[in-house]
């Protein structure tokens, strides 16, 4: 089993998985607390539409993924802020519209493109050194911004209006959070794929939610669970020859159900 660490591609895979696990689970905390969980799903499909367009016109896929992701997440943010329609409705519309765009772009391509499907379903074992460098840079950037603005992000997640009334620049922080979601999705596309990245944003944070009554502890637990699921999932996919994306997500889901059973909130023991 240790032999898998001797392969370069496995080393890259483990590092990529750990980065995705850490970044998704950290930003996922604020999304779950702020009630923006489904924004992750909409953004992932928008980013995938960007990837397909990039392959169609010959541009860098991650660049267009970022552009599509940020555009979608900001439109969602404006709709949520204006209260013109319910958040789940606006996300549903953007989610399906961007997916339709992706399918349209795939249809316009000449023949089958395996790389595009790699972004759809994830393929952590095929992460190249260049892709890993980009992921590392973006991950460190996202994590640094989270650390830098942690107190504002927590307050906005708790109560945005109260945060604004207390003198926190809540609106820019809300859009910063949405932008970080878009970057996190793009970082994760290659590893877990557009369909499953939503799970990595949602499940570790929701698992941590079951385990504690403290904001800071929730963040720590979420990141640990995210890294464990991602790295463990890659190991399982190697050992049992499984697709990596589903292995990561199913392991995270398993940990979630275990946490439900052991949750001190359910057992009425409430350690902080």
């Amino acid at each position: 089993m240790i032999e898998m660490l001797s392969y370069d591609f496995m080393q890259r895979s483990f590092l990529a998985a750990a980065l995705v696990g850490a970044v998704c689970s950290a930003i996922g905390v604020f999304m779950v607390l702020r009630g923006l969980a489904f924004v992750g799903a909409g953004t992932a499909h928008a980013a995938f539409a960007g990837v397909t367009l990039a392959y169609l016109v010959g541009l860098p896929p991650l660049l267009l993924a970022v552009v599509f992701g940020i555009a979608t997440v900001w439109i969602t943010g404006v709709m949520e802020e204006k209260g013109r329609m319910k958040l789940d409705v606006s996300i549903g519309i953007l989610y399906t519209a961007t997916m339709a765009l992706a399918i349209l772009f795939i249809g316009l391509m000449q023949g089958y493109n395996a790389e595009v499907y790699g972004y759809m379903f994830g393929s952590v074992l095929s992460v190249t050194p260049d892709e890993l460098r980009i992921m590392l840079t973006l991950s460190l950037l996202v994590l640094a911004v989270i650390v830098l603005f942690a107190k504002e992000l927590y307050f906005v997640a708790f109560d945005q209006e109260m945060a604004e009334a207390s003198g926190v620049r809540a609106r820019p922080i809300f859009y910063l959070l949405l932008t970080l979601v878009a970057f996190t999705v793009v970082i994760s596309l290659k590893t877990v794929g557009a369909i499953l990245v939503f799970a990595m944003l949602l499940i570790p944070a929701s698992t941590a939610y079951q385990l504690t009554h403290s904001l800071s502890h929730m963040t720590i637990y979420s990141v640990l669970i995210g890294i464990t699921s991602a790295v463990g999932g890659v190991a399982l996919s190697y050992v049992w020859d499984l697709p990596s994306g589903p292995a990561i997500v199913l392991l995270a889901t398993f940990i979630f159900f275990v946490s439900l059973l052991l949750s001190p909130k359910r057992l009425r023991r409430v350690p902080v």
Partner: protein
Amino acid sequence: MTTPIIRFSHATFGFPGVIALQDISLEISEGEFVGVIGPNGSGKTTLCRAILGLMRPLEGSLQIFDCACEKLRCHHRARIGYLPQKGVLERNFPITVLEAVMMGRYGALGLFRRPGQQDREIAVEALENVGMQDHRNTALGHLSGGQQQRVLIARALAQKPQVLLLDEPTTGVDITTQHSVLDLVQHLHRDLGLTVLLVTHDINLIRSRVNRLVLLKTRLFAAATPEEVLRPDLLRQVYGKDLVITQQDLIIVEDYHHR
């Protein structure tokens, strides 16, 4: 109680197609305890949002700490401790009492500065002021409605505010808790010298505690002592019902009185 710190001058506030407050002229002086009353939809919460600088006047002006409300900066807002209308806090929301109160420091700290020991001491002191210091590590969602209100008042106090702005702080709690919350606010007004603006529906509960009552129904109908404001003719104009003051000084709707 002479220096006005909040000045509405013919101010109108609203949303597209809706005027929520019209032509309001009102001064609130430092150290005052002012109750704001009026029926549902009379503009009480809009008044709060305006004072917080979250709405700009459509007409007229609003000065807070000698600053136009639309130019209110974060450090100004941090001087107003705000308790919003009570929402339902999810029981399992992962936040401890101390974490919630510490958030009161964030606006004053500004960007990039992390809360330190001094901020923690201020938060603990705020909890002591509301009698909740023994609950600092308890989950906020596990407290009773009245205790949660006390914690959120402590969060407002942690801002070290000059003004305490409370939007219906006694809604959704039992009568004993209503009195205990208002006793606390009265104590904070007296002992910490805070200017207090308290929005409420419960005239009977606050009439003996405030210096002035502000009676709203989109327009300002009165801003004077409780005795001057609580006149049956004035109340009838605003509430559209005959309200009577009983021998026990309770204000009740006349229809019920005659049953």
